[in-house]
């Protein structure tokens, strides 16, 4: 047994309102640069829907992930080492930018510059890739909220698969449609096929916390990782010619802060914590014969952090005590393994993804309520979960390689919790049989409810900091002292055209990007320095200066040109603790 620690995430889909705040804040922190305009490290897609990039789940087309070959061994779906090298000059299955979408802006200037005429001037969409005006035909969220339903929805690969069994399993007509949102980030897999696909060995899994990263200095732009990832969560920066991906906000996580997407999640539905797993058995678990066994095999890899044998083995591997403590308090371990309500996304890709999802019960509840039933009643709900097979089968294709049993189990637990808690809230006698029906006790249900419904910041995010002893090795610290040239590096291009020169550390880069934005003529707050807040550095506590524009009551003193608006410090109060959630 080789114990390793893995940073993991759980998302409770019932609570996702599809607001895209996570996507937007992530983009503002990480991909608001040219070259990655089309990149969303975090995206939220409506299911049923085609996803982003279009139909990424169809591995017959995109060849991502692993397959089990005839000898029972794992092989990369897109082909092994030799095949990769022989097709390196032109990757046979690389998504085109249009499979994501062609990013665009609008020619806003005509709105003000157009000569006087009979027609209203229009801001035409202009491609950010070619600079030409373009027709917008697709985007990362084109089919949001079932937009274009009957036309676009049926092209969802999961819908296609479910319908293969019976034509009218999934309906898109208004009365019978169902939908929910699926926020996605990189899964930081235990068996990452992106890493395995990288010819230059630039991608790696961090030994300490399992975060999967791209070494920007070693990436040579062979773009095989993009094909390798079945979730299409490695992106090609078309300007720098290097791969980029979700970093699990490592600069934040290293100091104990949750990722930006979690921090800003409106539904507060994300949980972050540690898993301990047995690294020696990953390949074995990923190669089980029956796809339906993959979920169980993956669960089986997760080690019980309370087990003295596991603790001893973890200590032997040099895992620190505060990390072991964090593993014991880990909300993600509880949701995935103790309560078994969180499921992995597409285990059949065999990458052992480490972002887990609590499937939504709401389509079932909604349907019940619509048909005039009591949607909170355990008996009704249990029956409906089975009767309304549509969501269950769809969810099973997403989370358990098509095996409806585990999904049904989770939904029943959630249903039992709903009805049990209603009795608690209404002060009625508690129905222990509802709990017993899903193999739990009332106390366990209460505990699970606490974690799912009212857990506060410290319980949702149990993140140990990088080892104290190593604090000075943190990548950010190492890098930011490492920068040649200093300020101004970002906008300027290196001697060999853009994107040459050294990689700029994240903190320095965002700092400069921020400053450029601040000093440019921006709409939000013209001429005001310190007027924007970098969410990457925001710990969610308090209201840093500049988060909101300063109040306008105090006009600048005449002649005082340097301190506009009375100064951001004085305008906004000191950070308060009232925002702490």
């Amino acid at each position, binding site marked *: 047994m080789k114990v390793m620690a893995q940073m993991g995430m759980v998302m409770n889909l019932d609570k996702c309102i599809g607001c895209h705040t996570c996507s937007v804040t992530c983009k503002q922190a990480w991909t608001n640069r040219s070259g990655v305009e089309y990149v969303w490290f975090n995206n939220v897609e409506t299911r049923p829907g085609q996803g982003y990039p279009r139909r990424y789940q169809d591995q017959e087309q995109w060849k991502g992930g692993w397959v089990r070959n005839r000898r029972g061994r794992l092989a990369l779906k897109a082909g092994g080492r030799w095949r990769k090298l022989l097709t390196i000059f032109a990757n046979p299955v690389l998504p085109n930018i249009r499979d994501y979408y062609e990013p665009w802006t609008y020619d806003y200037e005509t709105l003000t510059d157009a000569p006087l005429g009979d027609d209203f001037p229009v801001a035409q969409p202009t491609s950010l890739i070619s600079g030409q005006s373009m027709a917008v035909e697709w985007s990362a969220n084109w089919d949001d909220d079932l937009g274009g339903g009957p036309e676009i929805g049926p092209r969802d690969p999961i819908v296609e698969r479910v319908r293969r069994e019976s034509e009218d399993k999934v309906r898109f007509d208004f009365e019978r449609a169902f939908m929910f949102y699926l926020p996605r980030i990189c899964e930081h897999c235990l068996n990452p096929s992106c890493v395995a696909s*990288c010819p230059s060995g630039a991608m790696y899994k961090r030994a300490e916390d399992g975060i999967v990263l791209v070494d920007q200095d070693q990436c040579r732009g062979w773009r095989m990782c993009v094909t390798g990832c079945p979730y299409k969560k490695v992106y090609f920066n078309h300007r720098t010619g290097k791969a980029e991906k979700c970093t699990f906000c490592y600069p934040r996580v290293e100091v104990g802060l949750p990722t930006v997407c979690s921090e800003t999640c409106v539904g507060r539905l994300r949980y972050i914590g540690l898993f301990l797993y047995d690294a020696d058995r990953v390949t074995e678990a990923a190669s089980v014969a029956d796809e339906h066994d993959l979920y169980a095999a993956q669960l089986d890899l997760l080690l019980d952090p309370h087990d003295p044998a596991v603790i001893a083995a973890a200590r032997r591997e040099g895992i620190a005590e505060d990390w072991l403590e964090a593993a014991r308090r880990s909300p993600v371990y509880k949701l995935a393994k103790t309560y078994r309500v969180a499921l992995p996304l597409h285990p059949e890709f065999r990458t052992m993804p480490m972002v887990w999802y609590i499937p939504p019960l709401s389509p079932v509840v909604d349907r019940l309520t619509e048909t005039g039933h009591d949607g909170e009643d355990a008996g009704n709900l249990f029956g409906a979960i089975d009767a309304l097979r549509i969501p269950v089968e769809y969810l099973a294709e997403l989370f358990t390689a098509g095996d409806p049993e585990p999904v049904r189990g989770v939904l029943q637990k959630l249903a039992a919790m709903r009805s049990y808690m209603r009795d608690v809230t209404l002060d009625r006698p508690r129905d222990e049989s509802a709990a017993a029906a899903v193999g739990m006790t009332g106390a366990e249900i209460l505990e699970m409810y606490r974690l799912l419904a009212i857990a506060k910041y410290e319980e949702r995010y149990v993140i140990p900091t990088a080892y104290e002893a190593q604090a000075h090795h943190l990548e950010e610290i190492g890098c930011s*002292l490492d920068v040649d040239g200093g300020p101004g590096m970002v906008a300027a291009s290196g001697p060999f055209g853009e994107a040459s020169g050294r990689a700029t550390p994240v903190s320095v880069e965002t700092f400069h990007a921020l400053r450029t934005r601040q000093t440019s003529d921006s709409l939000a707050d013209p001429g005001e320095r310190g007027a924007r807040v970098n969410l990457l550095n925001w710990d969610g506590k308090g209201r840093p200066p500049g988060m909101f524009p300063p109040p306008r009551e105090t006009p600048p003193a005449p002649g005082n040109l340097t301190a506009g608006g009375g100064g951001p410090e004085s305008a906004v109060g000191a950070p308060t603790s009232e925002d702490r959630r």
Partner: protein
Amino acid sequence: MSILDVLLWGVLPYVTIAILVGGTVWRYRYDKFGWTTRSSELHESRLLRIGSPLFHFGLLVVIVGHVIGLLIPKSWTDAAGLSQDAYHLQALVLGAIAGFCTLVGVGILVYRRRTTGPVFSATTRNDKLMYAVLIAAIVAGLATTLLGASGGEEHNYRLTVSPWFRSLFVLQPDIEAMARSGLAFQLHTLIGLTLFAIWPFTRLVHAFTAPVGYLFRPYIVYRSRTGGPASRAPRRGWERVGTAPGGSSARRGR
């Protein structure tokens, strides 16, 4: 042996080698971030899928041909019983085919660059210069191969260019041998030297990091936050406190 000959065939090669080696080392040290193929497949893959393999595979054959032709002395092939005519024929056929593929491939690539909007706007001046020199080298090379078909003694580069090339590496350049070769060879050689001189400063550096190591490493790469290639040597003035100088780098290099 004129001054020009000395300069061209006795001095220039060493200057080129110095630029190539020094430039590559310098670029590797200071511009790892810029060291990439800068693939444009995200924008266009239909033409790339024909042009790029045609060009690269053709070029690999051409490179192997150059290595054989320049490094293996004629006396060796003679001793092996390969007659000049037989050698010439296979070199001509293989070389012409590979050269032709390379040329067509690069033609497709340039056509694609010019006509695909996004690829064209991602083309730098550096790329344009590189393509000019590269195509010139290929055309001149193909010309020498075809000229060689006429078979005159002055076209037997294995008696002129090759000895000169080998003599460079023992630091006794055989300038006369090179001066004796035909104009086409001299031109091709000069363009080739230019290509090598600009090589480290263009996207061509990607060829130096051809990922053969992929065949031998385990699939999943783990790296530690400390140690391993991910962490950097401390900058001067920021070394860690320790007793032995370089102690921290010893730790890093485990």
